[in-house]
């Protein structure tokens, strides 16, 4: 089996737009979703700004039953369920009737790094206060990593593989590739693919302690995350979820679905924490190999890459990432592809980063635009030496193109790269 795999549905809950229409508008216009966070200030965080989606109760009630909303503290599950159900609907698909047969041909790979960290905190306090009997019935469902997928698959009636992957900041890109493989090899017809990340101090605190987040922008949050900038000083923590429906080209054509783009291939690997690789830094050989293998699997030549949607978190490693792309593609200066990073607008959404950014990538391909990089008006001089500034757009470019490479890298020295292609209808 070697099915062609296309994307027919998108859903997103991002700090700068909590549905697809808002998100499209925001990324086209370089709208920041990073705000000052009073809770982080109260808790004496160095970095008191964050990218947090704003979801009100009215919206939640459209996706969760009143009983499910009682004691629901897992923000990651909220974001993931909204993005996942939105993607399913966007693909023109309906949930299986509650008394119907599971949809054996449809599954979900929906990743996360933690689940329900606020629920966990509540549960830990109760256990320690000898109140275990007061935990209620949903602590397990909300705090198991696969919780988001358990909610999603129940709501949709999915009967194929339902699995939660976890690979730090590469999680979302990996989810999409796992779902892609399952369809490509004929073991599923449709797969929901995506990832989510909890919000709040208990998930972001560890990064603040590592001193990898900027602390000079608490009074000007939208300027805080500065990928590729000379004044980049760390990543702003974010959260949210991204989701897409993947299916065989055959199934999409049969049911007359709108096709956003095709996945040509991709690769995941690890740098093994050898060479320059550590727990927190990538081994450049691993990164380069990951991109090379992704292009090879996709059957795409280095010269064919039109746009890179990069990982670029706004740390000193941005220069390293650019060097790796230059080395792999053997392209630089004016010959380098267009490159952008959404993190200037929404921060680093951790385990949700890869999926939110893939939704942004697919929108660009399908609709023919390249969103602007914000906060890199002072391009890093080492990047400027390698890439012509015209290839790093700071305003939205209206431009059709064919091939986009999306990469995500994560703690533990793990890498993922997906090659998306514009789909020609007819």
């Amino acid at each position: 089996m070697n099915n062609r795999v296309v994307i027919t549905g998108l859903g997103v809950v991002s700090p700068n737009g909590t549905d697809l229409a808002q998100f499209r508008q925001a990324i086209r216009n370089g709208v920041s979703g990073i705000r000052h966070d009073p809770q982080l200030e109260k808790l004496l965080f160095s970095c008191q700004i964050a990218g947090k989606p704003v979801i009100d109760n009215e919206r939640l009630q459209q996706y969760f039953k009143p009983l499910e909303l009682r004691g629901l503290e897992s923000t990651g599950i909220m974001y993931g369920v909204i993005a996942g159900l939105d993607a399913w609907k966007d693909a023109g698909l309906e949930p299986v009737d509650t008394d119907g047969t599971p949809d054996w041909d449809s599954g979900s790979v929906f990743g996360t790094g933690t689940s329900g960290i606020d629920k966990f905190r509540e549960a830990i306090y109760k256990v320690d206060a000898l109140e275990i009997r007061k935990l209620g019935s949903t602590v397990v469902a909300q705090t198991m990593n696969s919780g988001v997928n358990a909610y999603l698959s129940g709501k949709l009636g999915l009967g194929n593989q339902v699995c939660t992957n976890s690979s730090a900041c590469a999680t979302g890109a990996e989810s999409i590739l796992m779902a892609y493989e399952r369809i490509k090899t004929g073991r599923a017809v449709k797969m929901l693919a995506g990832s989510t990340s909890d919000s709040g101090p208990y998930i972001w605190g560890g990064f603040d302690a590592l001193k990898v987040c900027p602390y000079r922008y608490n009074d000007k949050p939208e300027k805080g995350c500065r990928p590729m900038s000379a004044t980049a000083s760390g990543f702003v923590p974010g959260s949210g979820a991204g989701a897409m429906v993947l299916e065989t080209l055959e199934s999409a054509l049969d049911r007359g679905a709108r096709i956003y783009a095709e996945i040509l291939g991709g690769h995941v690997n690890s740098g093994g924490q050898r060479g320059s690789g550590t727990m927190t830094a990538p081994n450049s050989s691993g990164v380069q190999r990951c991109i090379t293998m992704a292009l090879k699997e996709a059957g795409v030549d280095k010269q064919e890459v039109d746009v890179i949607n990069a990982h670029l978190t706004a740390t000193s490693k941005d220069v390293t990432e650019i060097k790796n792309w230059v080395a792999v593609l053997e392209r630089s200066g004016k010959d380098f592809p267009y490159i952008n990073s959404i993190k200037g607008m929404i921060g680093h959404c951790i385990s949700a980063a890869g999926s939110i950014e893939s939704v942004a990538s697919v929108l660009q391909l399908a609709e023919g635009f390249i969103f602007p990089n914000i906060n890199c008006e002072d391009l890093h001089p080492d990047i400027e030496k390698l890439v012509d500034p015209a290839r790093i757009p700071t305003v939205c470019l209206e431009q059709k193109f064919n091939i986009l490479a999306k990469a995500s890298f994560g703690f533990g020295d793990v890498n993922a790269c997906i090659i998306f292609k514009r789909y020609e209808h007819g």
Partner: protein
Amino acid sequence: MDKKELITELKTIVTPYAQDPEALDNIGEDTDFIKDLKINSANLVDVVLDVEEKFGIEIDNDSMAKMLSVKAAIEIIEDKLAGVDRK
């Protein structure tokens, strides 16, 4: 509090968990939480917690295991309110 009042209170408590609206409308002493109201068994612990909160009582594990119907719930609540531990 008489039986009728207790049933009314119980009805309010189980409403969010009951998945059979018709059985809920006709709730009576003989109503079974799982068989009739179709309450998910995992939610029975939530029902117990809500009962404890409403009546200011504490329901031990043995009583909790028996609390599967309106009738059993009423007996347990009445006992606890009367401070009797019927074993």
